[in-house]
């Protein structure tokens, strides 16, 4: 029997596989396909203080081994989440984490406070890395000073596990990671999407209504893996790795690079059962490698 459970701060996961925000709805969208209780956790869609309609269509463009999106945090707001969504998912037998987004520090704090009051939400993921909103989002995550300010403010308002989601669109991700850790983040998740662009040459027009968008999918994995590796050398808090994980081997690579858990994102769109398959595949890998616990491979890269 292989031990698959991991702890992220006080957040206990039965296995290291979570689903990434914005790719898994509120979990219920996938309940026809998988047993959600087989997941380590679910990170629900980015939630803001006020409802948001998101960006105009078109919001998506397929790219080689990946896709660009410019959804722009479409969601019905935190009050709708608390009243309508939370009752439907609070008894799921998996860790449900809320991704918290905002355009001002006050917004982030207000949402975090409302989520703090929900007994069955053990953690939030602070989204300071969304590339698709005009105000806030990534702007908070690209300078150490602004990261310090927002993490500090949310830390004071929120007393459960605080995960900070980092943007790859920075010169040195380790200084951002250290800033978040210094202000009390319990964990860091990385990476959010990479800013990208696609053009229809015949029409001479951008493929996204917003011109630029966030790149995800298999094509970003080498960058994500490198960043997890670099950050794991720079901070002590546990990391959650994501970015282009398409199968169990990809997930194992993130664990070896130093992540304590992983998130499956864009791969959910291609195979709605992939998250559970990855969890099973990690277990098979551990058995094959003669390991008794997933802990044995976290940061286990041999140099």
């Amino acid at each position, binding site marked *: 029997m292989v031990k698959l459970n991991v702890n992220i701060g006080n957040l206990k996961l039965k296995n290291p596989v979570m689903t990434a925000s914005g790719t898994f709805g509120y979990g219920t969208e996938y309940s026809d396909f998988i047993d959600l209780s087989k997941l380590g956790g679910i990170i629900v869609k980015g939630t803001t203080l006020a409802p948001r309609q998101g960006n105009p*269509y078109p919001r998506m463009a397929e790219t080689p081994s990946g896709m660009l999106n410019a959804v722009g945090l479409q969601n019905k707001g935190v009050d709708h989440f608390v009243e309508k969504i939370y009752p439907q998912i609070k008894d799921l037998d998996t860790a449900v984490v809320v991704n918290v987004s905002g355009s001002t520090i006050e917004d982030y704090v207000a949402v975090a406070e409302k989520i703090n009051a929900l007994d069955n939400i053990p953690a939030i993921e602070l989204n300071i890395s969304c590339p698709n909103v005009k105000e806030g989002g990534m702007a908070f995550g690209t300078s150490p000073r602004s990261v310090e300010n927002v993490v500090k403010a949310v830390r004071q308002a929120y007393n459960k596990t605080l995960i900070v989601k980092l943007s790859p669109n920075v010169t040195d991700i380790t200084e951002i990671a250290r800033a978040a850790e210094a202000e009390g983040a319990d964990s860091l998740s990385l990476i959010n999407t990479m800013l990208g662009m696609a053009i229809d040459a015949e029409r001479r027009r951008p493929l996204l209504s917003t011109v630029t968008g966030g790149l995800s999918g298999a094509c970003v994995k080498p960058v994500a893996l490198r960043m997890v590796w670099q950050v794991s050398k720079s901070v002590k808090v546990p990391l959650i790795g994501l970015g282009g994980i398409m199968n169990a081997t990809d997930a194992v690579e993130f664990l070896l690079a130093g992540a304590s858990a992983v998130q499956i994102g864009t791969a959910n769109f291609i195979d709605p059962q992939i998250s559970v398959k990855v969890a099973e595949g990690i277990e098979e890998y551990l058995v094959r490698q003669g390991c008794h616990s997933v802990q044995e491979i976290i940061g286990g890269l041999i140099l």
Partner: protein
Amino acid sequence: MKKAVIDMSVTANLSVNNRCVLLKLTPADGSILPECKPGQFVEMLVEGEPKAFLRRPISINYVDKDNNELWLLIQMVGAGTNKLSKAAVGDIINIIYPLGNGFTMPLEPNKKVLLVGGGVGVAPLLMLGDELKKAGHTPIFLLGARTKTDLLLLDQFNSISTTYVTTEDASEGEKGFVTQHSVLQKESFDFIYCCGPGPMMKAVAQYASKVAIECEVSLENKMACGIGACLCCVENTTKGNVCVCKEGPVFNIKKLQW
């Protein structure tokens, strides 16, 4: 209707014209194909084609219950559909099925309904026409294309019911667009269903509004997941941005901001 990921075995790949094939598929494990409704769609996995990262959403063309076969009309528009169109008998194609909501069937009996299709958008109208007829309604098809060879599955439509045709170059049927066909002047209808290129559907919707006939259209916004998770395929409706894959793909035109 519960959605499922199913491995399908290709039983036939029939050439329809030079850029379109009809794939017939049956569950690879021999199980009975679950129920679906006209207007629903599938997400097809494309394997072995690096340029096709995401699944391809394809309308359900027809379900042949006698042979336990799902029919999908594939028009070659890019790397993904090109690859799918080359499937050989016996190949396995993974699909997510059935997705979205279908067309609304008339609540009252004996309705005369018009089914307007353009290009590969005729696909869902075959099953819809068949089910309307079996339910005792009178479906009339009105199909448009640029030229004769772009008219797809005409024989199948004709075998179900009266089929009118327009082509832009007058190579078959009346010359012009579907909204210019004389049948619209000569006959009256209780309901219009429409699937085709955006400008065609907007013209049909405009016509339906003008003559005050209920009308449903099937949209094909670019999508990723097909199950309402990624929020990419949104259409701006009277309820704001909603996912075409989950709230649609069929919409009553009153709900659209057209």
